Structures are given as C-alpha cells and as structure tokens.
C-alpha cells in the first residue's frame, strides 16, 4: 500500500487581521503572491508535503477564515493543532502588541504542548517598518519560542519558517515515548475520510 506521507501535522496561523497570514499560506503552499488578493472567499486549509530527515511530512495548514477580524476566532479552530505560527506585521505596531493577547488566547484554547513560532511579516517594507528585528527577537525569547522575519511578497524565510516549525514538532514526537499518543485516541470516529483524520493523531502509519 503506497503511503504518500509518514506523518501528518496540523498547523495554524494566528495574528491580527491584515498581517499577511493568508499570503504566507499561499506563498508556502503555491509559491505565489497575489497582492490584489481580495479575500471574499477564504481558504479553509492548504496541504503541502515536505521532507524532513528522510520522512515525508504532510503539513495541513489552517487559515483563520477571516474570523480574527472582529475577535471571533472559534475555540474549535484550535482543536488538535500541533504547531502555531503567530504572525505580526513589522509595519504595524498594534499587531505586534497583540501577539501577547494571541498567546494568551492560545494558552486558553490550544493544547498545552503546542509548538509556537513568531513571525514578523512584511519585512520587505523596510521603509515603513516600525517594529525592529530586535524587539521581535526579544518578545520571542520572553515566550521561549523561535522567531523569524518573513516576507510573503518576496518569499523570504517563509519556507524556512514552516520547515523549522515542522522539525520542532517532529523532534518533540521523536523524544516522546512511542507508547504515548499525541492526544486524541485511535477510537475516534471521523464521518469523512478527508484530512481531518490525521489531526492530532501523529503517526499515520
């Protein structure tokens, strides 16, 4: 039986509206940037399979569907997430300040051991930057998570960031006692054969 992947990781994008989450997702999954992107119809999630340390890892990356706009992310969004990209916009001070709020939001709703990473996006807009790289770095250190500046427009660091997050999740899994399950149990019923079948499940073998 031909397996197309060894592991399935569910990842989320979180951050204020307009910081470039959807663009980052499109850049990573399709290597494209459409600056006239008008999100009348959103993206549910995107899939990309990557190779890490000889293993095929299927990344299922969920977008907020615009529900962050009026502070209305559903608690259901966080279910089964194994990694979260926290995104702010280096040209928008408030989006940076709100990272703390988003971290609190994650603590309330996501699994305690979810891997996190902070991204300062739009780093191509050097002339209108208001948040320095150092401040981003400090914030990340304070929360003990990795940090990277990205540009969905130029593609800078987008791929590296996702690969890093995926690698951290994989390392965490490898460290774990194989007997431990990654959260949800095998006896859960999925009423579709779609991709949700792997959420939180870890190894799909």
């Amino acid at each position: 039986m031909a397996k197309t992947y060894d592991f399935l990781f569910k990842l989320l994008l979180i951050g204020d509206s307009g910081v470039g989450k959807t663009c980052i997702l499109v850049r990573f999954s399709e290597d494209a940037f459409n600056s006239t992107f008008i999100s009348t119809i959103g993206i549910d999630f995107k899939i990309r399979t990557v190779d890490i340390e000889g293993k095929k890892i299927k990344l299922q990356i969920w977008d907020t569907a615009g529900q962050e706009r009026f502070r209305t992310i559903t608690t259901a969004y966080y279910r089964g997430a194994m990694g979260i990209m926290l995104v702010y916009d280096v040209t928008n001070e408030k989006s940076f300040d709100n990272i703390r709020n988003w971290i609190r939001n994650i603590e309330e709703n996501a699994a305690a051991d979810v891997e996190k990473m902070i991204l300062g996006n739009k780093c191509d807009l050097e002339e209108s930057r208001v948040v320095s790289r150092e401040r981003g770095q400090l914030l990340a250190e304070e929360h003990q998570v990795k940090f990277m500046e990205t540009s969905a427009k130029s593609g800078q660091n987008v791929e590296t960031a996702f690969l890093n997050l995926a690698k951290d999740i994989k390392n965490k899994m490898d460290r774990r006692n194989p007997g431990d399950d990654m959260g949800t149990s095998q006896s859960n019923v999925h009423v579709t054969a779609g991709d949700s079948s792997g959420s939180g499940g870890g190894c799909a073998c």
Partner: protein
Amino acid sequence: MAHLPDDDLPSSFDIVIVGTGLIQSIVAAAAARAGKTVLHLDNNSYYGGCWATLMYNDLQRWIEVHSKEVTDEDESTVVTQLNEDEVSVKCNLSLSDKVTNLIEINHSEEEEEEDKGENKTDEEALVESVPINEEPTSNDAPDMPINNEPIESKVKVTWNNLGNQKKRFNFDLIPKLLYCRGEMVDIIVQSGVSRYLEFKSLPKLYCSNANHEIIQVPCSRADVFTSSIVSMLEKRKLMKVLTFCAEYEKHETDYQEYIGHPFTEFLQSRDLTDNIIQFILHSIAMVDESETTLNGLKATQMFLHSLGRFGNAPFLYPLFGNGELPQGFCRLCAVFGGVYCLKRSIRELIVSSDNKQLIGVVCTTGQRIQCSSFVGPAGMLSSGSVSSQRISRAIFITDGQIDGMDEKISLLTIPPASDDSPASRVSVLQLDSSTLTSTEGTNMIHATCKSFGSSAKEDLEFIVQRFFSTCTTPSDNKPRLLWSLYYNLSLSSCSHSTETDSSRDVKSDLPPNVLMVSDPDDTISYEACIHEAKKVFECLYPDEPFLPRMPDSEDIIYGEEETASSDQLAGETEEETSANQKNDEEDQHNDEKDQEFDEKVEDTSTKQNPEQNDSI
C-alpha cells in the same frame, strides 16, 4: 467589562443573522455557500447560544449572568435617525429569563462542612438524612498521606483539589447526540463541516426498569436474544415489531389506521406486553406517549437504521461537546466570506412603511446596516407566534461511572414512572475524559427531561440518590459526586410554513423577509433542527441548493487550480471520493484510502455489509 473599540462593519449585506445557535449557523453557512453576503452576530462572547458548550470559566460567567435578577433597564433611549418612509421595530435584547432556578453545588465544600460537623447550608438542608461519615481520612487535609500508601490512592478527588484542571471541562448547555444515519451526519459530510469535527460512538445504551435496575438496550439480533429485558416469549414479538418498524413504509396497510393516533395505540395493536411497549417507546424511539404513530415509526426506524454504520451504536457524540457543531458551520460560513462579530447584536429592525419590507437593521453599536433578509432567535421580536416549553437540566461531575453503565460513553433512558420520580422520561448521558469534556479520572453526567416539577433540582435530584455517593448518602459501589449544576431552560419554538399560510405562520405579523428560528428542542437528536434550518433556507432562497457538496476537498480557492504537487492533490481527491461513497452506503469499497479511516469505522463498515439490516 469594557467595550473594546471596533472597526465598523461593512454597511450592506444580503442577510443579517443574529445568534450563533445551530439553526442560525446552518442557515448562515448555507447562505454564504449560495454566494450571499452574510453578517452573523451574537450578543454573547462565545458561539452557540443555548447550543453552546462552555468551558469552565465561561460557564462561571454564564451562571453569574443568569443568576441575576432580570432587570430590563436596557430600555435604550438612543434614537435612530430614520427617513420618513421608515419605521423601526425594537428588538428584545435581554433573553436572560430563559434560564431559571440555577443552583451550583460544590460537593467538596459540602464534604468539608460535613466532616467538621458544621451546620448544613441551605442547599444541604433539603437533603434530609443523617450524615454518616464512614471515611475517616477525609477529615484531614486531603493532600496529606497518612500512612505509607502511595499518595495517589490516598488523595480523594474533590472539586476543590481539581484546581486548574477544571478549565478542561466542557459543559454542554443542552446535550445532544447524532443519529449515525441521521440527516445531521449527511449534512456535515456533504457540506465539508465534518473535517472540523471528530466523534465518539456510543456502543451501548441502557434503560432502567421498574426496579431501578440498569439494563442494556439490545442493539442487534443477538442482543435481543441474550437480553434480560424481555422474557423468552416476548423476544420473538420484539424482533417482529422491530423488523416491521425497520421497513414500515413497505407495510402501509398495517399501520394506516393508526397514522393520526398515538404510537402507543399502534404498539398495543401489535399484541405486545406493556413491558415491550414502554421499552420501544422510551429506549428505542425515545418519544413521548402522545407521539403520533407515524413519528414513532420514523423514530424507531431512524434508531434501527443507525445501527452498524459506525460501530454497533446508533449515536455519535462530538469530541469537545456539541458546541463544536455550530462553530463548524460558522467556520464554513466564514470560509465563504461570512463576516463574524460576537458581543454585538442588533437593537432595531428598519421596515419600509410602504411595503412593510425589512430594509435594514441597527446594531447595538448604533451602526446602520442595509440588508434584504434577517434571521433571528425566537423571542427577539415581541411579534411572531412562538410557543415555549421548559426543560430541566442537571450536570454532574463524578469520580467514576454509574454502576451498571459499564460503557464509558453511554446513554441511559429512565422511563416516566406513574407513582415515583420522574414524571417524564429522563435522558442520562455519561461522558468520560475520552470525549474531552471531562478530565482524566472524572465523568461528566448530563441529565435532561421535560420539566414536571417546580425546578430542575426537584425534577432531577432523584438521580443523585439513585446513582451517586454523597457524604449524606455514602456508598461504596457508587461514584462520588464532586460537583453539580441544576437549571431550567425555557425553549421557544416557532413553526415555519412556506409562503401563503398566514394564520399560524410566525412571519404573519413580521415583515416577510424577517424570519425567526427555534431554540433547541427537547429531543436527544438533531433531526428537527436540520429540518427547520432547511425550511428557513428554503423560505429565504427557494431556488438555491441547500449546502451542496464542497467543490474541492483540499480548500476553496478563489482563483486558479493548483498544478504543483499533483500527487497530493490526486490523493486528496481520492480521499474525498471515498468519503462520498461512504455516504452513499458503499462502505465496502476497498480503496487503499479506506485504510485511513480509523479502525473503528473500518471495522464496522466491513462488518456491516452485506446486509444493511444485519443489526436487527
């Protein structure tokens, strides 16, 4: 709580929907799916209204809000600027009278008080029985091991020492289950909402007999013949009537004359003992004595057909609780462009004085929004014919399973008793930590019934005496009760008739483009809710398909098709195909992708065939 400043909402939508209850959320998703621009608001800070599942902190806030005296001081004096040809209809924002008789009891406090021999609280005084304390260690601080036994076995779980773990409880305000072959399962599969959800199946159901004994409800042929619920003689009769119900449509002449009559009358005509009639009525069909024959047959058939789809169980329970369902439909709506805003509602409808059509709404923030339709909860507008009924609810947290309900996730139905409590059927849903609604080592037990006494506590307290160990009535083989919550809910329902009918139509005194929807009903299932959501959608958009199948399994792309990584895409499509086939009952399909179903589903999909009716 301080109001956070907000961006203004867009000023025009096709439809504004208030309340994120399940029916509104399904309608919202269907409207967005049909290409309508949707604004979906909710006055609460959480999704779901009374369909919600609340985390502990939200539940505490909910308790606080609903324990307050209802004060309608919110009579806003704000005047909305209207044009000459417009009139405004005020909306009722305070729906807090829906919840009454709220009582929360932390039994660890009770235990401590009992242990100290102090006076009982008012609540305690209701329970008249001499406190007997047979557990000497409970006098001491629970975290101090007294002898050499390991700490874990010594520390008694109490609500107080659960500490931070309490945050991980998820409380259904109204617990429900999905029939495995019910319309809800079909709709979530077809719409794609199923990718946001996971379920547990309920492999065993129980009922209790006149002697208060818990007995397993037979869910297969073999079960019927080994069941202790019926005598040997009754078994054949039971089999016969169930087989009949499973395909009742084929024998129309056999039930024709009972169509308008109660289901009980039909059952009596089949030469069944009272024992079996009660059993079918309350544990299989789960309908009231007064239910019509046709509805009774339908309910029985739904139960029987649901067996064997996902395990030999008729029901599914959503992980994290039922509140995941409205959130799933809201997400689907958002993916199709729906705009969401919580902690906000509307205070007025603006109606044209010429043609009595709704032309817009005014938000609680004062913002005016143009729209061509409006959907809101029953009771929001004083007009509209709405009926209401009261249910009694109890939620118990215990340190173990109910004795006799050895299946961790299971449903017990307690039929009404003529002399004893309860006076109406009580559903007891037992959930363990694998449903992610309770924590390791505890159970969440929901009890629900139509109200018959003066309060939820009066109606449902018999469950405590019957099944739990408390400090006033300790028992070794019963789980200890840690915490309980009682409340009554008053649930509104409105009838929807299509177009012309004016006498009983809720729309009658409302603008035709304003629709009200019901609260949850008192049944355990979602069937009525789906039915109403479809009906409302049909009234709004008669020519649009209702939640058609998702165009693509991976995502909804506004632009061009993906060409890169075609392997995966092929994989995805295949998976979706097998999902469709599953839905079309071609479960036997032995595609490699089926391997990705978790074992349980796979097991039964092969077991289930070749005969659909194998289970009964």
